[in-house]
């Protein structure tokens, strides 16, 4: 970089290309900046505004500001809305945490198995295991919805041959949650596995040889050579993973439609997370105000995690 600048600097008349502020840069940036402003920033700001109003089907053309009422309703335990929101909020966090951790450890475990130099055929295994990542997620989730159907699905038909009868996969609150987490595992482990494998293969062979000379056992090599290297690539993988699972709409809505329904309320079922609750609030119940309020809660949640991510990993800081 600096040598390039030197040689250009010496050729005085071409100075414009490097060195000084270039206004034309904003021309190059404008397509991205304008579209981001219109389609990312503006809707976000409007969502915050709408969360302070009563915009809904009843007040469709004449919404008015109601202050913090929507937020107060969500957190006031006497309000029926809070009785839906708080369990939904907790499930959103639980799902994101359990799912991300599980996906990561399964991916890491398989990567460790595949990274065995004595296993000559491991590339073949890898290419097969990557299939769930290659199939578009929406299609796989819908396929799983069919396979897990209690009466007609092939999963129950298969379990039947082992003497296990009619597990109510998508219709019982507990099993519906298990289904969501397991299907998400099926969808997500190949990505985690691939990135972990990349990290494992980047560990220099000399480190293991040196450890071997020092008399390290298999376990010691794993603990003191493999784990530290893995940890370095894991954080930038795990924390965005949480942020992503917080807002994972498809896995919930396309697999269970948020159901099974609660007896107490129609607003959200047992597997609804905040993202699918926003969708239902807006489209089924025409409560744009509450949809926007839930979105703001989710913004805060995601923002908090992203901030932790940035602090913990220093990702993107080298940009220059």
């Amino acid at each position: 970089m600096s040598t390039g600048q030197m040689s250009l600097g010496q050729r005085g008349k071409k100075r414009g290309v490097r060195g000084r502020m270039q206004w034309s840069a904003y021309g190059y940036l404008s397509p991205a900046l304008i579209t981001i402003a219109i389609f990312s920033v503006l809707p976000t700001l409007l969502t915050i505004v709408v969360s302070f109003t009563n915009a809904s089907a009843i007040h469709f053309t004449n919404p008015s500001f109601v202050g913090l009422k929507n937020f107060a309703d969500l957190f006031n335990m006497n309000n029926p809305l809070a009785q839906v929101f708080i369990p939904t909020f907790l499930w959103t966090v639980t799902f994101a945490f359990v799912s991300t951790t599980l996906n990561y450890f399964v991916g890491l475990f398989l990567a460790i198995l595949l990274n065995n130099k004595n296993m000559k055929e491991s590339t073949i295994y890898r290419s097969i295991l990557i299939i769930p990542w290659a199939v578009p997620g929406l299609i796989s989730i819908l396929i799983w919805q069919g396979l897990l159907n209690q009466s007609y699905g092939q999963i129950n038909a298969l379990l039947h041959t082992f003497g296990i009868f009619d597990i109510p996969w998508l219709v019982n609150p507990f099993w519906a949650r298990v289904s969501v987490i397991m299907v998400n595992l099926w969808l997500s482990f190949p990505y985690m596995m691939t990135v972990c494998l990349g990290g494992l293969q980047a560990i220099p062979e000399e480190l293991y040889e040196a450890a071997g000379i020092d008399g390290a056992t298999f376990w010691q090599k794993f603990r003191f050579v493999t784990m530290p290297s893995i940890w370095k690539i894991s954080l930038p993988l795990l924390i965005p993973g949480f942020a992503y699972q917080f807002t994972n709409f498809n896995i919930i809505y396309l697999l269970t439609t948020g159901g099974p329904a609660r007896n107490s309320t129609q607003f959200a079922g047992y597997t609804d997370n905040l993202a699918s609750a926003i969708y239902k609030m807006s489209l089924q119940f025409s409560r744009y105000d509450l949809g926007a309020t839930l979105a703001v809660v989710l913004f805060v949640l995601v923002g908090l995690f992203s901030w932790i991510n940035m602090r913990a990993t220093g990702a993107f800081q080298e940009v220059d």
Partner: protein
Amino acid sequence: MASVKKRLRPGESAVLWMSRVILWIVIVLTILPMLYVVTASFNPTQAYFSSSLIPTHPSLANYQTLFQQGQFLVWLRNSTIVGLSLGVGQLLITATAAYAFSRMRFFGRKNGIMFLLILQMFPNFLTISVIYYALAQWGLLDNLWVYILVQLGGSAYNIWLLKKYFDTVPKELDEAAVMDGAGHWQIFWKVVLPLARPMLVVIFFFTLIGSFSEYILAGTIIQSASNYTLGLGLYSLISNQFAKNWGEFAAAAILSALPLTIAFGLLNRWIASGLVAGSVKG
């Protein structure tokens, strides 16, 4: 490499075989669901409640129904329009911005991408309340082009990926071009962009494949069946009269997933290297 035909120690051999057995089990669990769908697609109606992988009365009936009665081809056309528009749009929008971040000097260069990445931590599909509310008031719902437009925001992540790739194009090439009298536009168009073709292809296909998995905005904006994307169409097939439509759904799922899966496989190496460049610092 050095040790040719080294005999494994007993411990190593045990680890190897245990690993193999675990991997075989995982592989079966991974591909079994896919095989079931293939079976279902070749099974005529009502013959699916079976754990057998071999169709009881194999036929192409489901595929025929799909092309003759259903709206599969309409969905496919709509999704292709959406995917191609978004893929091309994303390249047009991000390429010049990535060039500016890689090669130009301006206020905001140092922290600009970071700032944009933070802005986009909040995916815009969470704002569907507002999007639906606004589009309903303006009478713009149920329009495929509006659906495309709403998703046409530049992706900060793609700008970042592309910028890192542009950075690997040697600056000496720029200097050579400058000596030949080239300005920024020629350097961008004739030097940097052609050399970045692999990353452009990756971003194009990422966007295209991603668009096939988009449901929430499609469900918000699109209403009539003639505007359905594959996602909406497949969802409607499996949610209405599941028992009747499972075979047809399976056929549709296979036909739509197959080309994308193959494209992904072919691009796998490029995509993997792109991901490593993106996720590992430095």
